[in-house]
């Protein structure tokens, strides 16, 4: 296995009208070739900002980025806007949360896909159209010829998301970033879209960075999962290792709060409190104020990602001073 995308020490600061925020703090993340990597966390934990930073979609003037994003031998953070334009859509595709907003209401569906071919391969209009028709059929939009000439308002949300997926994979990129690709869709449609994504992933050998707040989607789609909280990666590892044996206290609380069918009638488990504000500066673990078991060190020293328990999976790393397998009484007495 070799790394396709390797993020190390990534910090992002954004100038907003309310002040400087710090949504991503020293993130390390590795995506292997052909693997689906789930990035999970609550709203506002920095998942989307991380994704947008990879593609350089932030307005450069307002953002300060530190760290490295190595992709195909290049540090994306050091590339110029012109060089990034050649990577976006060509080497890294992007699927957005709301397909209705993501498509231009005034352009034909087909032309919006064909644009990728004309832009990145210099195809003629006719050649681009031919490729687009094939792609439309591949993502299940039929009859392709008739649908090509329609406009976004004539499509349902699910169909539009298929169009967005088509745009993301059109140029045959090795990596696709999907930012909550089913959140804006009806529940019945979500499964279809996920199935399509999974099929395409296997067929094309795509690596996917799947951003979601839904562990159900992770367990269905992903090979690897990383849990993010307040701009920090709390835990990362193979899906089963993390889901079955979460080491970090936050990951565990998050997984415990997934409603399960067997638990019908029982009160749903929640994590008390809210995530810290993005403006806040803190030492120590960002989850400490909400954690059930904290020690003095949790509030003073930031935990680093470490292979805490090799028994619970190779390549399973967590950032926690007091991992879940530790004897709890001992800790409380601290």
């Amino acid at each position: 296995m070799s790394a396709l995308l390797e993020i190390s020490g990534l910090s992002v600061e954004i100038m907003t009208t309310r002040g400087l925020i710090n949504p991503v703090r020293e993130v390390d993340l590795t995506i292997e070739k052909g693997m689906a990597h789930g990035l999970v966390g609550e709203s506002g934990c920095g998942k989307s900002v991380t994704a947008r930073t990879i593609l350089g979609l932030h307005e450069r003037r307002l953002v300060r980025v530190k760290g490295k994003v190595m992709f195909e031998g290049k540090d994306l953070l050091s590339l110029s806007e012109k060089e990034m334009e050649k990577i976006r859509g060509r080497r890294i595709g992007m699927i957005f949360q709301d397909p209705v907003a993501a498509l231009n209401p005034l352009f034909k569906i087909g032309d919006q896909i064909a644009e990728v071919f004309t832009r990145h391969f210099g195809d003629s209009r006719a050649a681009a159209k031919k490729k687009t028709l094939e792609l439309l059929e591949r993502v299940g939009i039929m009859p392709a010829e008739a649908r090509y000439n329609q406009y976004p308002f004539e499509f349902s949300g699910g169909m539009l998301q298929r169009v967005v997926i088509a745009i993301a994979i059109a140029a045959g990129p090795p990596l696709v970033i999907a930012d909550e690709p089913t959140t804006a869709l009806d529940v019945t449609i979500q499964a279809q879209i996920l199935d399509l994504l999974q099929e395409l992933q296997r067929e094309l050998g795509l690596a996917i960075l799947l951003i979601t707040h839904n562990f159900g989607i992770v367990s269905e789609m992903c090979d690897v999962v990383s849990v993010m909280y307040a701009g920090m990666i709390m835990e990362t590892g193979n899906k089963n290792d993390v889901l079955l044996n979460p080491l970090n206290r936050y990951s565990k609380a998050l997984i415990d709060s997934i409603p399960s069918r067997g638990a019908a009638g029982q009160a749903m488990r929640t994590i008390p409190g809210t995530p810290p504000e993005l403006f806040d500066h803190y030492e120590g673990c960002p989850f400490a104020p909400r954690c059930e078991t904290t020690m003095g060190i949790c509030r003073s020293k930031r935990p680093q990602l470490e292979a805490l328990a090799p028994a619970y999976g190779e390549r399973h790393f967590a950032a926690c001073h007091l991992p879940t397998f530790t004897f709890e009484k001992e800790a409380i007495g601290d």
Partner: protein
Amino acid sequence: MTRYVTGRLAQMVIVLFIVSLLIFFGVRITPTDPIASIAKGKQMSAETIAALKAEYYLDRPLTEQYAIWMKGMILGDLGKSYQYRERVTVLLAGRIGTSVQLVFMSSILIFLLGIPLGIISASRKNTMTDQSLTIASLVLVSSPSFFTGMILMLLFTLVIPIFPTFGIGSGFVDNIRYLALPAISLAAVLLALTMRMTRSNMVEQLSSGYVQMATAKGLTRRQVVYKHALRNSSIPILTVSSLQIAGMLSGSVMVETVFALNGIGSLLASSVNKGDYPVTQSITLMMVVVFMTFNLIVDIMYGVIDPRIRLGGGRKHEA
């Protein structure tokens, strides 16, 4: 589409009828004496006055005067000017060229400067370029056209005398040189407004989802701004700028007076002063027609630009 346009034309006829009543009676409420305008200060006998009144139908009841005006309008006869004692059609024919050229030159300034500067301002939001353009547009918006006109006249007569400051010149190229200053003063406020409006619209479009998607596809910044965002901003930009151009006809009254141009605007100004009913009525109604025609063209353009309007799409979503 044909049905839509026919419907709109029928609507225009009704509106024109109502407006013509307003104009007709509005003109007659003003405290001016048409006979004095015809007499140009000369003493006249009661018989002469009676004869003149008869010649201009001023002795008839108002309703009949209105009917005569309407009938003439339909037959292409706009009546006879009191002050020039000439047919209004002839009078207008001699002057309309100047006004049309003036408005045309100002429109070009608005389209070629106002819109592009607005786009540049938006795509470089909050930079020095944007802020300088914002300040410049605020200065322009807050100086009325007659003031801009006078400042330009002073500047170009005393400091750098390259443009003539009054008159129209002869020949097309000469016209352009003569009309440059009037066109700039007529366009200034509207240019600044168009620029501000274009900027705010483009800023909104540039922060929308499809612009992000277009960027994520790898399109160049130029393609994103000019192909995607501009197309979506074009409806409001078109609406406002075309109405401004239509409104410039009335704006030309001030500018033509300041620069002593023999156009429609200055003719309207003097007709109102002298109580020259036929001329005042005709020009005012003509401005209304121009305004409505521009409106209709813009509404048709909506359909051309936006498929949701053209195809009568059910689901409308914010772009």
